[in-house]
């Protein structure tokens, strides 16, 4: 029987084919138990083969946690990751650029090995879900045969290099960053200097400062195209930023250099990689991103080290070889440009044209955005879209960080016909890059870390907002909503007008899905500022939060201010007050609807839960105490907004102490207010016993408290204060999670709350 390996022989780049063969061999060795599972997990991740929810071999079906009896039993492909369990395959699409041939293959793979859906991510990748691991090698070969590699799509490596999807046709860019993004990807792919990172490293390119397309400030390394006049000649270069990142504690990237010449961008990237590999944290994953290294060294020292490293690099022809070819680089339109004529316009066209069509700087051409709900496109649609691309634009298709696809170089005169063809495929939804076009990470649908259903919420909001999109005021339509299923920010909730991230709260002994409401983030200016949470709201009330805030915005808006400007002017306190009763959860007997998540009728639970009377009393106390801790976090934010950094730092520490004390009181009511006493009791009862540990984050959040307590550090500047506030927010969330976990496991027993020393039985 012919295999894909035989069929595609000679069609794959030789080195890629060899790498896939080696990977297939490693799979076999792991199957035989000859490769250690942690090592194999990293090997697998570096091929883009991720785990997925329930791959630990168990799932709560709504009545209790049940084992999933996979045929190969407990054979694993990584720690706590069952071999047979379906996983996610991430496919790198450098700068989001795809050609129709590649789109065809992606469609085929989704159909044959996944669930018929290609999912576009917030970093221009494509992900396939529910993939059986055994199918990985043929998938990788079929991708390699059309020039796509999944190498380093995950793992501690340089991830997909992203770029503005309008690069080359944008009206505002300094120059087209596409070839630079591509060269960076090619140069660093598999490079020896990126093989020893403690964590991932993300790179983005943007053609301008003011738009959001590149999101430079939230990347480990971000480059904005700039030009300079030197001796009467225009010279290209990049304003280079380092140390940005979202994650649990977001950091805005800091300026490394206001002008790195184009021929220096690759060697500088290489030198940064070497410094990161050599000095970056390796053991503590929670502090291993380059943002922590930049912060601990300071940008001046970091830059000095990079420049020293740069001097030692052996010359590499690839640093500049692509630059010599740049004059010949450029996309060729398929057809001659011509303006939209007076032909009859079908129903829906005008609305689509208003939101989904961008006039290129090249006369007579447009970029048409194909809005994909939650970033999803079916195999059939993808294949048909590839055919449309062949006929209208040739090879100019890109994915976007907004989880859409754009067709570039569409002749304006073809727009009506194009719209009709997209409409027939169910791909003509208007509202690209508007409040309707909600970004969401996979959340509890497929992600192991998801707490609440980001996609379920996004689908609900999208349905509601799309129904009234035409009536919405332009100021509201221009807003952005981004949703993450947990604090890890894959949905980029920090950089939107309204951001939400999933948390949970214990109500009467039941776990209720909630979302933290994040306001004040800025999408434009390459993700110019980050928002902060103002309070947790039950998941089912989030649509009302959106209505509440958009209504208030329209009513109280001054002049032409954006929502972000409005939020900044009225302040978080006033916004939080507007939440009012929306934060409340009715008793389960009165309304059980709140106790399940969007799109998932199972009772929202982490296991079988008890509702004993004694536990109820303890719950009341701990919930009350944690609520006070949240209030302190919020006050810290207000200080931060007012520029009172020391006060913000002090308040955030108090919030952490209050959270820790709340937990200690579950076992030992007589804990004092002395910080030393609280921290000591907390460490002994919750950290040393690992009761506080998150399944994935371990003791990371407790370290925030310990570090702060030991260092007594204040806040020197806004960035430091902000970090302390973020950390206190996450610590208090972790206290909530711990409290829920302890109660779920029935360990808060009668007498615990009043006895002086209690050992948890977990």
């Amino acid at each position, binding site marked *: 029987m012919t295999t894909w390996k035989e069929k595609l022989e000679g069609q794959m780049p030789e080195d890629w084919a060899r790498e896939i063969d080696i990977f297939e061999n490693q799979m076999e060795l792991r199957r035989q138990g000859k490769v250690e599972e942690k090592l194999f997990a990293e090997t697998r991740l570096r091929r883009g083969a991720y785990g997925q*929810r329930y791959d630990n071999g168990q799932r709560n079906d709504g009545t209790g946690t049940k084992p999933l009896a996979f045929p190969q039993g407990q054979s694993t492909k990584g720690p706590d990751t069952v071999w047979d369990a*379906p996983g996610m395959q991430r496919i790198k699409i450098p700068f989001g650029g795809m050609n129709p041939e590649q789109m065809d293959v992606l469609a085929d793979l989704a159909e044959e090995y996944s*669930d018929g859906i290609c999912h576009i991510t917030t970093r221009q990748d494509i992900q396939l879900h*529910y993939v059986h691991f055994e199918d990985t090698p043929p998938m990788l070969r079929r991708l390699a045969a059309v020039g796509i590699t999944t190498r380093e799509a995950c793992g501690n490596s340089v991830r997909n290099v992203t770029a503005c999807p309008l690069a080359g046709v944008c009206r505002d860019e300094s120059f087209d960053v596409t070839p630079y993004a591509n060269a960076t990807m090619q140069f660093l792919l598999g490079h020896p200097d990126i093989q020893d990172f403690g964590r991932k490293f993300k790179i983005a390119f943007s053609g301008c400062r003011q738009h959001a397309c590149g999101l430079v400030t939230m990347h480990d390394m971000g480059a904005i195209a700039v030009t300079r006049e030197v001796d009467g000649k225009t010279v290209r270069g990049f304003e280079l930023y380092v140390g940005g990142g979202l994650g649990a504690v977001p950091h805005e990237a800091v300026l490394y250099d206001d002008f790195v010449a184009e021929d220096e961008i690759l060697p500088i990237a290489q030198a940064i990689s070497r410094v990161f590999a050599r000095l970056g944290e390796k053991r503590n994953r929670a502090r291993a991103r380059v943002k922590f290294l930049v912060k601990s060294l300071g940008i001046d020292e970091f830059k000095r080290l990079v420049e020293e490293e740069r001097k030692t690099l052996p010359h590499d022809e690839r640093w500049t070889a692509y630059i010599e070819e740049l004059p010949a680089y450029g996309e060729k339109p398929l057809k001659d440009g011509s303006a939209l004529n007076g032909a009859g316009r079908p129903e829906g066209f005008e609305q689509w044209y208003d939101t989904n069509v961008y006039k290129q700087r090249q006369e007579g051409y447009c970029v048409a955005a194909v809005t994909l*709900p939650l970033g999803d*496109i079916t195999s059939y*649609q993808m294949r048909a879209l590839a055919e449309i691309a062949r006929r209208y634009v040739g090879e100019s298709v890109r994915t976007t960080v907004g989880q859409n696809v754009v067709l570039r170089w569409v002749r304006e005169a073809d727009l009506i016909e194009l719209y009709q063809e997209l409409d027939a495929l*169910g791909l003509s939804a208007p509202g690209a890059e508007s409040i309707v076009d909600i970004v969401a990470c996979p959340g509890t649908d497929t992600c192991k870390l998801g707490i609440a259903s980001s996609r379920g919420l996004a689908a609900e909001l999208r349905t509601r907002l799309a129904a009234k999109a035409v009536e919405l005021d332009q100021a509201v339509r221009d807003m952005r909503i981004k949703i993450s299923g947990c604090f890890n920010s894959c949905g980029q909730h920090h950089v939107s007008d309204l951001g939400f991230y999933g948390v949970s709260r214990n109500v009467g002994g039941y776990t209720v899905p909630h979302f933290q409401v994040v306001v004040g983030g800025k999408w434009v200016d390459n993700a110019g500022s980050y928002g902060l949470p103002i309070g947790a709201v039950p998941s089912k009330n989030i649509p009302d939060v959106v209505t509440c805030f958009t209504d208030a915005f329209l009513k109280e808006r001054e002049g032409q201010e954006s929502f972000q400007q409005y939020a900044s002017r009225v302040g978080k306190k006033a916004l939080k007050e507007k939440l009012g009763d929306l934060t409340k959860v009715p008793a389960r007997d009165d309304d059980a609807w709140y106790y399940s998540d969007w799109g998932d*009728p199972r009772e929202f639970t982490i296991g079988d839960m008890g509702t004993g009377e004694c536990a109820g009393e303890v719950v009341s106390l701990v919930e009350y105490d944690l609520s006070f801790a949240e209030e302190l976090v919020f006050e810290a934010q207000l200080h931060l907004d007012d520029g009172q950094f020391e006060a913000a730092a002090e308040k955030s520490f108090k919030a952490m102490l209050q959270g820790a004390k709340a937990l200690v009181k579950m076992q030992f009511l007589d804990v004092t207010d002395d910080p030393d006493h609280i921290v000591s009791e907390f460490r002994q009862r919750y950290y040393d016993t690992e009761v506080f540990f998150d399944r994935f984050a371990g003791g990371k959040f407790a370290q925030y408290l310990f570090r702060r307590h030991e260092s007594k550090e204040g806040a020197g500047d806004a960035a430091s204060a902000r970090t302390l506030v973020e950390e206190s927010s996450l610590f208090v969330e972790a206290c909530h999670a711990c409290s829920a976990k302890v109660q779920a496991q029935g360990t808060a027993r009668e007498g615990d709350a009043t006895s002086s020393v209690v050992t948890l039985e977990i």
Partner: protein
Amino acid sequence: MAHSVDNLQRIGVKFFLSEAPDPEKVIGVFHRWIQNGSVDGMLIDVADYSHVEQGPGVLLVGHEGNYAVDWTRNRPGVVYYRKQPLEGDLGERLRTVCETALQAAELLEDESDLGAGAKLRGDEVQIFANDRLLAPNDAGTQSAFQPALDGLLDRLFNGSSRQLCRDEDPKERFNMDVKAETGAAAAALRARLND
């Protein structure tokens, strides 16, 4: 000479529905099926793609195969497609896949929550192959596949006349649309397969 399609394992089938049921209700039904182990196979999770127009709808993801109430090309139907190998020759594998799909269809027809939306048309079925290597969408595959298909259809539609149609786009997966002169409910179709 044997054709590669004889080795085909990734077989799929879609029985078309009279109208589209409410996807939200289908989600609830599929979760209940997992709790009760209502259909064959090791059931893992429910995937909701009802937000995608003309998409795969709501899937009940299993280890051996996936079930779905599918909306592809705006034509609702009950789908089952196999992901793991089956016993028997091509004809037997084809019958097993159809039988599994009809078991699900029968249960859906009995779901009072779904109302009339989950009633099978019973006179139309689509067979497809999720394997472009073993079953490219061409005339060669069709003629090699035909004997097994005829054997299935003779039983399924009691020998009544039927029309066969294939979307010949070579990029599509191999597919055969079958429209019979007379149809039947899921239970009756399933019983015929087991006769």
